């Protein structure tokens, strides 16, 4: 079997119309670290990209029979990635080591993730890297209020980049940052204007890189160490809320898989994100899980627990699903595997 971490990473840069995706990409591509990067863009914007490996993708979605919207294969992307890989193998283009996809402003990034993780040919050559979402400091708050697409783009991000903070004369950044931290506590919020943007932090430090995932876990555990009240309470933008469940009892991997596949099948559209550090029964190292709607990344692990706290912690970003019901349900499924030892989940951090 191919080593998953050795596959070519694909980063998705998404964000609402005019939120500065292309400007961000332009700055990142100027870095020598990203010299061997192929770029796929959905639309040519006003900001010109001058890059030797730039290809344009027309937007089309193939909805699978009986499938939901998030489980649609993006036919255009499928063709482009297959063609790109074929050109690379034939030596017609330089041997790129990373692909960056810039979506159109209203695109739903989840079908892109689904295409990368589930398309039979693509999944053997590529893996999904970080999803980076840009948010405009001036208009971002209004866009979150008015457009569910914008909320979803922020909820599924691994990195949130706030752009145009230099134009923010009314001091909207702090409120926007608080709101983003409530909406997606596991993603660091980065100001685009803060000097040199480190491509490594945005793109390379991802869940499939051993060092990257350790630091990533440190980041989101630190975010959850802040009481929910200090992060500004609960955000209910379009019914979307985030919370972190903590379990004292080790989780049985088989029971967890049964529960999570069932939850994703019935409620996947409303489970925007699941990200967790699991204490799996019978295993000394923690297992990391990372899911978006109906899609799950292959689980990874840390070599050791980051600190003395060995409880399972799972962050959920959901739309209209109550925390208490999810908590009780997972506890009940876990008791199936271990009816005596399993107890109700401990008080959560968020």
């Amino acid at each position, binding site marked *: 079997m191919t080593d998953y971490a050795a596959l070519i990473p694909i980063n998705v840069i998404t964000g609402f119309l005019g939120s500065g995706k292309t400007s961000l990409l332009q700055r990142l591509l100027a870095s020598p670290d990203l010299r061997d990067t192929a770029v796929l863009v959905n639309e040519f914007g006003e900001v010109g990209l001058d890059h030797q490996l730039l290809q344009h993708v027309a937007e089309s979605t193939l909805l699978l029979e009986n499938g939901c919207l998030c489980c649609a294969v993006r036919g255009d992307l499928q063709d482009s990635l297959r063609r790109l890989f074929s050109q690379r193998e034939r030596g017609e283009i330089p041997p790129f080591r990373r692909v960056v996809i810039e979506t159109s402003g209203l695109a739903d990034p989840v079908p892109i993730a689904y295409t990368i993780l589930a398309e039979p040919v693509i*999944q053997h050559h590529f893996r999904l890297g970080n999803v980076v979402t840009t948010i405009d400091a001036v208009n971002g708050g209004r866009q979150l209020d008015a457009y569910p697409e914008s909320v979803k783009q922020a909820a599924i991000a691994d990195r949130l980049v706030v752009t145009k903070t230099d134009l923010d004369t009314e001091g909207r950044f702090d409120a926007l940052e608080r709101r983003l931290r409530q909406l997606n506590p596991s993603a660091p919020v980065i100001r685009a204007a803060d000097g040199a943007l480190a491509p490594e932090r945005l793109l390379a430090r991802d869940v499939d890189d051993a060092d990257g995932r350790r630091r990533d876990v440190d980041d989101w555990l630190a975010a959850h160490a802040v009481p929910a009240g200090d992060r500004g309470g609960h955000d209910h933008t379009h019914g979307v809320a985030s919370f972190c469940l903590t379990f004292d009892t080790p989780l049985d991997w*088989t029971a967890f898989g049964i529960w999570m596949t069932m939850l994703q099948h019935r409620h996947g559209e409303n489970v925007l994100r699941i990200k967790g550090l699991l204490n799996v029964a019978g295993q000394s190292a923690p297992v990391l899980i990372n899911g978006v709607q109906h899609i799950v990344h292959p689980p*990874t692990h840390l070599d050791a627990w980051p600190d003395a706290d060995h409880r399972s912690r799972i962050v959920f970003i959901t739309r209209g699903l109550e925390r208490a019901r999810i908590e009780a349900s997972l506890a009940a499924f876990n008791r199936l595997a271990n009816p005596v030892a399993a107890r109700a989940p401990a008080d959560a951090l968020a």
Partner: protein
Amino acid sequence: MCGLCGVLGGRGHWTETASNPDTFRSRAETHTWHRERQARTRLVNAVLRHYGLRLDDWSGNAYMLRGKTGRTALVDNLTEVWAAAEQIGRGACDPLDAALLASLSDGGPGR
């Protein structure tokens, strides 16, 4: 079916530890592939019983889902179990349903 998993020999389902051996290398006990399938079948049947359904391992490379009326479906993995269960069972399979959770507390996987 909500996916292409399995078609043309995909990577293997994320719930199967054999698909990601490196992730599960720190386990204290050796879990054979067969034992894992047995445990999965036993636990999933504790849930399916609520819907009047039963799952059996089918020659080690698929699972056979059966309803009380004799309707059957072959599925490759857990994700496919739930879509098939809703087709041949009695409606939605919802892990947040209070009636299901009550039946899990009453029963357990042993029966």
